[in-house]
């Protein structure tokens, strides 16, 4: 009996690995747990402009937020933003990755140029694009005029109809390097001999892409989608720098609205409620990512 207990103990508690990861586990718990707890606390409290808790607010912060048309619109727009940027990025990245895989003279340079935007901070990139879209001296209007495509100038950032699509375009441009990197990794894992076999069977390049490349790239595309969704969903600088969610709240996504609530209007409690709502959504995407990872052990 005692032997049996000893045996099960030895099997049940492999102490050494746990002891070894204990420090980082504690660290991670503290680093993740403390802010999470703080946000949870703020979201159910009546919080002053300076972050001092004045008392409990129950669920009234959540009630106010969910009833606020600005929040509802921002939520929908966050969906458009995330879908627009991620779908656009992917559509642009697959051909770019395919081209960059082909051996051609100067490929190293081309790869560098594609990756370069990654090295620039998002806020800086957004400022540069804001200048480019300037109605009076921006290069976008100047180029369009030079090409004879229009006369006068377009006030790109003056209304959501022009500003928001352009913000999505900028979001795409800054997401492409990361996505191309993932896809290039995926492409290099596809063995070359299957294409030779397909060619012998008379497959055209289009068939090769549709029947071979794309399915084999599937897991990588999945990962690119999920990681981009999480990242773009939370992306603050582009919209804040270019339109600050305006005019008339027409370009707010959740994260810019959250910032405005907390730091412009002085309502940290409601901002905490918004960030919890965002956390739930992102958590959903993360769960999806974990499932994909387990199914296709590539990333």
């Amino acid at each position, binding site marked *: 009996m005692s032997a049996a207990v000893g045996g099960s103990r030895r099997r049940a508690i492999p102490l050494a690995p746990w002891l070894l990861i204990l420090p980082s586990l504690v660290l991670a718990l503290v680093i993740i747990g403390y802010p999470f707890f703080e946000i949870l606390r703020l979201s159910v409290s009546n919080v002053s402009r300076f972050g*001092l808790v004045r008392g409990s607010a129950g669920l009234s912060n959540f009630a106010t937020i969910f009833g606020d048309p600005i929040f509802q619109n921002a939520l929908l727009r966050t969906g458009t933003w995330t879908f627009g940027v991620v779908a656009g990025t992917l559509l642009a990245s697959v051909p770019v990755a395919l081209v960059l895989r082909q051996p051609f003279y100067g490929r190293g340079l081309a790869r560098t140029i594609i990756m370069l935007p990654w090295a620039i901070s998002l806020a800086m990139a957004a400022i540069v694009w804001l200048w480019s879209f300037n109605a009076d001296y921006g290069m976008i209007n100047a180029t369009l005029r030079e090409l004879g495509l229009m006369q006068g100038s377009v006030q790109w950032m003056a209304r959501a109809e022009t500003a928001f699509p352009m913000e999505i375009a900028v979001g795409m441009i800054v997401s492409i390097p990361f996505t191309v990197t993932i896809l290039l990794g995926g492409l290099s894992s596809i063995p070359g001999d299957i294409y030779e076999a397909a060619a012998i069977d008379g497959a055209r390049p289009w068939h090769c892409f549709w029947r071979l490349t794309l399915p084999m790239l599937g897991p990588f595309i999945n990962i690119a989608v999920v990681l981009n969704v999480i990242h773009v969903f939370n992306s603050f600088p582009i919209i804040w720098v270019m339109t600050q969610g*305006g005019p008339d709240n027409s370009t707010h996504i959740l994260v810019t609205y959250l910032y405005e609530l907390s730091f412009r*209007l*002085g309502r940290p409690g409601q901002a905490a409620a918004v960030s919890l709502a965002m956390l739930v959504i992102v958590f959903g995407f993360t769960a999806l990512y974990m499932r994909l990872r387990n199914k296709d052990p590539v990333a």
Partner: protein
Amino acid sequence: MKLARFGLLACAAFAGVALGQQARAETVHMTVSYYSAATGPYFEKMAAEFHAANPGIDVKIDVVNWDGLLQKLRTDISGGTNPDISIIGTRWLLDFVKDDIAEPLDGYMNADFKDRFIGPFLKPAIIDGKAYGLPIAASARAMYYNKDMLTKAGFPNGPATWDDVATAAEKLKAMKEPGFGLMAKGTEVDVYWYYALWSYGGDVVSPDLKAAFASPAGVQALTMYKSFVDKGLTEDGPTNYTREDLQNLFKQGRVSMVITAPFLINQIAKEAPKLDYGIVPVPKGTTSSTYAVTDSVVMFKNSKVKPAAWKFLDFLFTKEPRVEFTKGEGFLPTTKAEATDPYFTNNERLKVFVDLLPTAHFAPTVTGWEDTAKAVTDAVQSVYLDKAQPDAALKQAAARADESLGK
């Protein structure tokens, strides 16, 4: 051997003296907002001069960008690492007082000290009869006009009424010259519309703390601005222009009229010295009125060096430091002594602003002012973008403002 021991002893004694001195010297931490490139050097200089006269007190200056100031103070306050004194927007004061973090200053001020200030500037920082802030920076708003252009339009002395503005802008438009600068992006979009609201006799908040801007005067003011936009009398796409953008357009001669603060005078002198411009009061509707803003210095309740901090404030609010500050930043004098300096008395352009002060509206210290500003900004923008009618938009904004005004 003996020598070595003596040396050690001397060292110890030295260290002891040094430590003792350090313990006795008090350090006052002050946070100031970045107004211009001159702000930091000015306060460093004042701190050095003050230290020379009061060797026992060190003043440490921290310059913070205006946009990040409230956020920084918030973080510092909740972490208990806030400075002893700080410049703040006077309109934030109410929240400071509500949270019991601002020290009332009446105990430090005698009648003579109070008398240093120009009356109206002290008022916005008085809450429930107690003074919590000293007005360190003040500005009012008036209309800048491009003399060449307005002369061509038949108003060599600038427009006096909103009708003049419309007439001038129409004539200028016919000559392919730019018109009235209208801002509808960034901070103060609300204020830019209040100018017109006040000039038609309206008000933003009623005495019983309800939103009062959705009045006939308000509708008239917004309808007028909207008609400027529709007729092309403003720059194209006002929702794309912040106050800074408009000021730049004015310097480049690409709007002919703009309402803004006195500090544009300094900017024009530096960046567009050849620009021929004049300054007139905010155009009249039925009356003339302007907006005045103060920034205040407050002392925090948890400061451990209050007397020393006050001593520094006392020094800052004497004549020479004040003149240097106000001149350097292009603000208006807040103390009587500095106002007598020839720089202010002989300056025709600044005088326009000073003369406007008796009828100036200050941002009231009420809770919900920021929410009101946000609601009005949204309403004004939606009207300019053809998404709403003035009347309906203002009513909706008033309902939103009432949710937080005075609460």
